[in-house]
C-alpha cells in the first residue's frame, strides 16, 4: 500500500469538510431528495453497471 507523502489534505481542511457536511445534513427542506434521483440517472445513464468483475477478457 502506497502511503501519502505529505500531499494529503490538512486536518483543518478535513474538519471543515465534516462541518460542511453536517450543516447540509441538517438543512431544512427536501432539496437533496428531490434532486438526487435525477442526478443519479444522469450519472449512470451512460455507464455499465458491472457489479464486480467483467469477464470480457483478461
Amino acid at each position, binding site marked *: 500500500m502506497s502511503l501519502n507523502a505529505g500531499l494529503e489534505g490538512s*486536518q483543518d481542511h478535513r474538519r471543515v469538510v465534516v462541518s460542511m457536511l453536517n450543516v447540509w445534513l441538517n438543512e431544512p427542506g427536501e432539496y*437533496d431528495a428531490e434532486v438526487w434521483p435525477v442526478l443519479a440517472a444522469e450519472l449512470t445513464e451512460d455507464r455499465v453497471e458491472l457489479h*464486480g468483475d*467483467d469477464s470480457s477478457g483478461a
Partner: protein
Amino acid sequence: MVTIPLVLDSSALGKLCHPKQPKNRSFVEAVTELSGSATPYADNCAPAIAEYELRRKFLRLVGRNQASLVSVERLDDLCSELWLLARSRHVLRLAAGYWSELRRRGLPTDASASPDADVILAAQAATIGGWVVTSTFRHLIRLIPVIRSEDIGRPHARRVPARSDNVPPAEFEQTVRNTIGPVWIHPNQLPFSGLQ
C-alpha cells in the same frame, strides 16, 4: 501518519453534495467518520476529472430547472477543501498508457461515454496509491483498487477501532479494509509501474 487516500469519482462526490438523500446518508456518515477524527484513517480526494464530470451534470440540470445552483455551490465548497488531485502531465501520460493497454487487451474503451475520464481518474488514483470510491466499476477495477460507495457504511461494517501509532502499515490497511468494506482488485490489474 498513515492515511489512505479515498479517490472520489463523480458519483461519490455527488453523494457528498446531497447528503440528506436517504440513500446517501450512510455513505456520508461513514466517510466523515473515517476522515473526520484527529487521527484519520482516510483522506478524501477530489480528482479534477471527477469534479469536471459532476459539474457539467449539475449545470445541465440547472439549465433544465431540475436542480438549483445549490448543487454547484456545494461542489465549489467541497472542492475548495478536499485534497484536489490535479491533472498533471504525468497523470495524462499514465492515463494514455492505461488506455492503450486496455485497447490492446481488447477491452472496449469506447463502451462508456467517458472512457477517457475513467483512465484519467485511475491514473490520478495510482499516482498517490489511492483507492477509487465509485458506484459503477466500469473498467476501473482493471486499473486500480476500487471500493463501491454502497459498501462503505454497510451495517455489518465494523466501527473504526482506536488507532495506535505503532500499528504496522499492513495491519492498518487490513483494518481499514475490513472496516470500510471490500476492496476490489482485479487479478489481472494492469501494473502501475509498467506504464510510467
